[in-house]
């Protein structure tokens, strides 16, 4: 063959890949911005969110896949709707008001439900949504309805709900809201938190005989 190329030199392997939309991983942060958070805690929370964004940006796949929305409470309001990480520009949060945690949780669940429908309509694959509650206090509104919604959503595998308590958080109530044990945050180690969450989400199918959901130990970022 005249056009023989030594096999050592051939360009083996395609540079062209299927151009699929990245599967999305929706994540809602429910952030306590009540009066008790004022001062250093809210400052650290703001820094934590910036760290969260930067840590996600340092991971090329997470940058394309993770979508973040923020609900703040006191009072409960949608601070920022779903954006991919590079389009996520969180405002500086300020602390004021009471702690309507129940309303915020209901709002968060509504957000992920709507977002999943948006993905389905657009033919985009997605991961199980995460709802992450971060608080330093106790709910000041009726939270039992929200707790029931969390239990129902977890049972139906509609989302994964995590409660993270900072310092003086009411862990007794958090335990009643979250199906998973609430965790006490050590510093603001979001990178470790994210790695842990994504690895944990690759859970074994619930159809397995005698199975339970396997979460990795939350090592590094939590004082359990």
């Amino acid at each position, binding site marked *: 063959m005249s056009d023989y190329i030594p*096999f*050592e030199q*051939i*360009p*083996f*392997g*395609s*540079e*062209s*890949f*299927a*151009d*699929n*939309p*990245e*599967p999305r991983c929706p994540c809602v942060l429910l952030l306590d911005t009540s009066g008790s958070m004022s001062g250093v805690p809210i400052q650290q929370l703001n820094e934590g969110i910036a760290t969260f964004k930067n840590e996600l940006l340092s991971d*090329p*796949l997470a940058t394309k896949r993770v979508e973040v929305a923020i609900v703040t409470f006191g009072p409960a309001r949608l601070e920022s709707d779903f954006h991919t990480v590079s389009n996520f520009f969180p405002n500086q949060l300020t602390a004021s008001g009471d702690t309507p945690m129940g309303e915020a949780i209901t709002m968060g669940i509504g957000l992920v439900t709507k977002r999943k429908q948006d993905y389905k309509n657009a*033919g985009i*694959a*997605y*991961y*199980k949504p995460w709802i992450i509650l971060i608080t330093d206090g106790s709910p000041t509104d009726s939270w039992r309805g929200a707790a029931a919604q969390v239990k129902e959503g977890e049972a139906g*595998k509609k989302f994964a709900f995590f409660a993270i308590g900072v310092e003086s958080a009411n862990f007794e109530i958090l335990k009643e809201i979250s199906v998973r044990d609430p965790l006490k945050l050590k510093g603001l180690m979001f990178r470790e938190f994210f*790695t842990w969450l*994504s*690895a*944990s*989400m*690759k*859970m*074994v*199918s619930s*159809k*397995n*005989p*005698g*199975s*339970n959901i*396997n979460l990795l130990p939350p090592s590094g970022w939590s004082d359990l």
Partner: protein
Amino acid sequence: MTWRAIGQRAIGTAHVQSGKVCEDALAFQRVTSPDGDVLIACASDGAGSALFAAEASQLVTEKTVKVLCNYAKDAYVVRDVDIIMLAEELYDELNRRAALVNCALNEFSCTFLGCYIQNHQAIFFQIGDGAIVREDGHGSFTPVWWPHNGEYSNTTTFLVDDPSFPNLRITTLDQDIREVAIFTDGLQNLILNTEAVSVHQPFFGALFPWLRKSKTDEEIQILQQKLGEYLSGSLINSRTDDDKTLFLATRNFE
């Protein structure tokens, strides 16, 4: 002409980061039978959350190829029932291993994909995600099945899910299969167009022509090595952080 086959697996960057090993496994074999060559391949993707994912996928691929090789030596035509029996054997073996280490069976969760290709017919089987792709006789590639994912991108079905195998897919094609590829979930989003529900043809267009041209064992060996480099390279790793396996085989392609 006889089958020329290469196949590699490569660890995903996410697994490197978390200090895990590659939990994909691949085994393949060409067997000479009285009726001509038989191509046997099996790939398996151990579930990321399963403690013994790597052991499970390794066991499944090795045992499958061993069992099918014994069939091939006698030019036996493998039927659906043989694949179901094979799946049962694998299930039992994984169950024994789980009991041995005192673990839940789902710690041995893995997918199951493979083929047994004779001259004029072929049987394919699959549980879970990943895909088997064949050349359709006109130079274009088509999946035997569209991958089975659950609602979420990272959920699928596994061999140990249910001993009655409701998710086991088996099909026999009475055709001369000329080319086949098998890949695990890690490459799915790079090879399959989800919107068009089709294979991204250029992906194989940069691989198969070289395998067709290879004439000697030495050339196949070079391609085998290049495939490993390709799967571990930055081009692929910028698109997927998962373990990935790719198997390619060709014959009689003019």
